[in-house]
């Protein structure tokens, strides 16, 4: 096996050194009846050439990867500068472990410190952790954190939060005695219904909203924060499209208490849903309740600045069942990719990407809205996603669009909402040239006339 340095002869010598006669004897502590007597039935070894051919032919069957696409809904197609993927492939980054030994891990530690800073700046919050698994689990952790802070057991969530995120929250809190209550969406605006906010009460730990929400509508976060705070509840803001932070008011400036986001938009490949990364930020006063790793500044005896993992007493390896979370491995390398993306795009690039997304989505929305039979059900301002109401069943329309026009037109909402057969969600980013948008519009027209 070419990944194993020691040759069979070397291994034989080492066996002799430790006083064994055969490799089998290495496993003498495993009772014989439990030991396999033959090889596993997994496939026999293949060469690089064969492996590449096999994987390429699997990848070929993912035809969606080769088509113009208007899918968003929690995973976004953005252009990632070439340097991002190049730099994360430096051995020193991707073959290192969690930076437990700061003297020989300053590269990772400084990068995380920069990541935390960037997340704070974009979200407008005070403190951010070193990443969570993804946006959905970050949200679940935020809900648990709100319970720890408020010691209240009810959590009110907008139904305009990504449905898979809500599912994950359900799973995480199911054994925690937390009651989840869902708020309707205003069928005219597409925003969380303000009437429904009556559900907030003094037992409420947190109000959870997403903005832009799952339907692409921008929520009035500040107003929602006011309502939550009025009841002593925290406001948790979730974001799936982090590029929106380049343009929209930061949750921090709108008084959010905890902000979670999916960071995939920051230069991370779609990769069929993962690995992505959860951003998690909050206020200084809640820093010691934050889940996951934190990196902080530290100095050595000679006064040289460095960085270390800090506030570890929150974590499972110290606090065990009383930890703020069970998370250990997080999304380190993906956070690094996001860091490089944010720094390469920089202040002006993040603004321009956001701007292009908004303009292209507006153009697409306008064009689709002009089509006979199509409408845009929601009036709230949007970032780069919007719901389209088709004159026919959306799922089959999109299926035909894929088959006949080779365009992935968006997400049929029936996947998550059985009662919305004709609606679909369209996402437009800077990676969709106008020609693709025009082809989408033409395709929708052709298939419904």
């Amino acid at each position, binding site marked *: 096996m070419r990944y194993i340095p020691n040759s069979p002869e070397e291994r034989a010598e080492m066996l002799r050194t430790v006083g064994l006669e055969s490799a089998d004897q*290495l496993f003498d502590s495993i*009772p014989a009846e439990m030991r396999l007597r033959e090889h596993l039935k997994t496939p026999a070894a293949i060469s690089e050439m064969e492996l590449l051919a096999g994987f390429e032919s699997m990848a070929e069957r993912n035809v969606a990867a080769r088509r113009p696409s208007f899918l968003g809904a929690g995973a976004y197609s953005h252009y990632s500068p070439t340097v991002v993927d190049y730099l994360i492939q430096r051995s020193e980054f991707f073959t290192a472990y969690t930076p437990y030994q700061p003297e*020989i891990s300053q590269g990772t530690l400084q990068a995380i410190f920069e990541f935390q800073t*960037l997340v704070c700046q974009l979200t407008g919050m005070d403190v951010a952790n070193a990443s969570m698994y993804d946006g959905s689990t970050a949200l679940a952790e935020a809900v648990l954190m709100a319970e720890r802070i408020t010691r209240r057991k009810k959590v009110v969530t907008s139904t305009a939060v990504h449905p898979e995120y809500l599912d994950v929250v*359900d799973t995480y809190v199911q054994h925690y005695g937390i009651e989840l209550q869902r708020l309707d969406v205003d069928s005219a605006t597409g925003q969380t219904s303000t009437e429904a906010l009556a559900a907030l009460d003094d037992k409420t730990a947190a109000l959870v909203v997403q903005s832009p929400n799952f339907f692409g509508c921008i929520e009035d976060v500040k107003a929602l924060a006011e309502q939550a705070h009025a009841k002593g509840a925290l406001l948790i803001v979730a974001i799936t499209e982090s590029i929106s932070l380049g343009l929209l008011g930061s949750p921090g400036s709108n008084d959010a208490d905890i902000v979670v986001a999916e960071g995939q938009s920051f230069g991370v490949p779609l990769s069929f849903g993962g690995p992505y990364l959860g951003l998690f930020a909050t206020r200084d006063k809640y820093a010691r309740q934050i889940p996951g790793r934190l990196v902080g500044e530290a100095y050595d005896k000679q006064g040289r600045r460095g960085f270390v993992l800090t506030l570890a007493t929150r974590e499972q390896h110290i606090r065990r069942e009383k930890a703020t979370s069970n998370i250990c491995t997080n999304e380190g390398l993906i956070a690094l990719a996001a860091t490089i993306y944010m720094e390469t795009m920089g202040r002006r690039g993040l603004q321009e990407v956001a701007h292009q997304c908004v303009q292209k989505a507006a153009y697409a929305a306008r064009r689709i809205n002009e089509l006979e039979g199509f409408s845009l059900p929601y009036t709230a301002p949007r970032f780069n996603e919007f719901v389209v109401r088709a004159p026919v069943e959306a799922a089959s329309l999109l299926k035909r669009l894929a088959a006949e026009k080779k365009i992935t037109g968006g997400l049929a909402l029936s996947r998550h909402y059985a009662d919305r057969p004709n609606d679909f969600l369209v996402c437009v980013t800077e990676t969709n040239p106008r020609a693709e948008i025009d082809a989408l519009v033409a395709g929708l027209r052709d298939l419904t006339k």
Partner: protein
Amino acid sequence: MTERINGSISLMSITKATSHISQNEALIFERSQTGRVGYRLPPLDVDETSLDEIIPQKFRREDDLEGMPEVSEVDVVRHFTRISTWNYSIDLGMYPLGSCTMKYNSRLNEKVARIAGFANLHPLASVEDTQGALQLIYELQESLSEITGLAGVSLQPAAGAHGEMTGVMLIRAFIDARDGEGASSRRRTMLIPDSAHGTNPASANLSGFTVRTIRSTSDGFTDLEHLRELCAHGDVAGLMLTNPNTLGLFEKNIREICSIVHEAGGLVYMDGANMNALVGVARPGDMGVDVIHLNLHKTFSTPHGGGGPGCGPCCCTEELEPFLPVPRVVKDSDAYRLDFNRPQSIGRVKAFYGNFGMMVRALAYIQTHGNDGLREATEAAVLNARYIAHQLTSDYDKPYEAAPMHEVVFTDKRQSRKGVHTLDIAKRLIDYGFHPMTIYFPLIVQGAMLIEPTESVGRAELDQFVEAMRSIAREAVEDPETVLGAPHSTRIGRLDEAAAARKPVLRWKPKTTATTA
């Protein structure tokens, strides 16, 4: 060289490393200069609408993203290249972190994960248009099922701890279904050995269990008597056992342990972080284990990436299978599809399907090794650990007699008499060119040094490691100051972690005004 890289005279010659010049680099915010740019987008190719018409002012940022860096592409490349050189990494040499399994990360696996048909695939594209990805998931599920001897596999969990949570929730859901809510509510105890990794109790807690700790025997195994005692009260939902345990020892009584728990109405969860000692040699399913998580980022060599990402598949018996997270990837004759219709499922633990990119790498690992190579890797890993165990016993206290599997624990007992502790030995190893072992884990071993060489280290470097450790043992006696002041060869010395935690500075702020958006 020795004199130069050491604070004081060293007793041994250091063969693995030397001192060399290394570039400094400030924080990117300190490099940033107004007006620098590092990106270019194609020109906007649609008619622009006034922004006010699309998004009213009140929803927009007012801070003009002040504080975000402004740097050129060259700045970025130099910034990250420089700071990267401050890291130790597998590619630089042995990385013997016990329990972490720092084995070689194949470049081939990196390459296949980046094939456009995988990397550019949206998770919500239709099943017809993503058959290759579903096939890959399915094939990996099948392989992991064969490797663990367990029928059901979900690849959704994003890491080991996530897999633990999933597994423990399966146990809970199973017992709820088996016993009914009422009876089940009296089974809320999860037994966990004192040697377990911290994620185990944390995950049990997340799933609403009360943790009871099982003692380990003085020879490093689960204390069967104590286990029986704890199982006597009818409240035990399960046991979370690591095997080989975190001391590197195979729990030889595993079948009996499983029987005791099963007889008490509980289920057995195995923490599979140490599966690299067993792959191709023995299967948890054959031992009586009900559910296990794997760390693809350990056993199957997906890169640790300085902290992640991982992938923590959860494998379980057929009985538990109905409870696995949705959606499940299943195969109907020739086509693959997502099955959401699992009424007994614990639900989703993550958006989409898990860390797919890691699955691509893990399947490549399995296919590249082949079934014989998988066993060969296990043998080589165990042999390397056994070799170190054998060579260091003369100089370090080895608290357990039993032959270790893939990792071995030593302590600082002998050295601490001279005031040299595990932390000092670890730091001194840095001067010898090594990344230290895992220290102070497992918690039950005072001054633990948990050494896991993995199969990815050749004999010459193992011997260098042994020499380094022996040399440090000598230094601890003859020149303890050098050890206590270590490392001497790094760009910074030991950092004051206590001060850092007392007044945490967790982000950069501009020198002048500390504004937030």
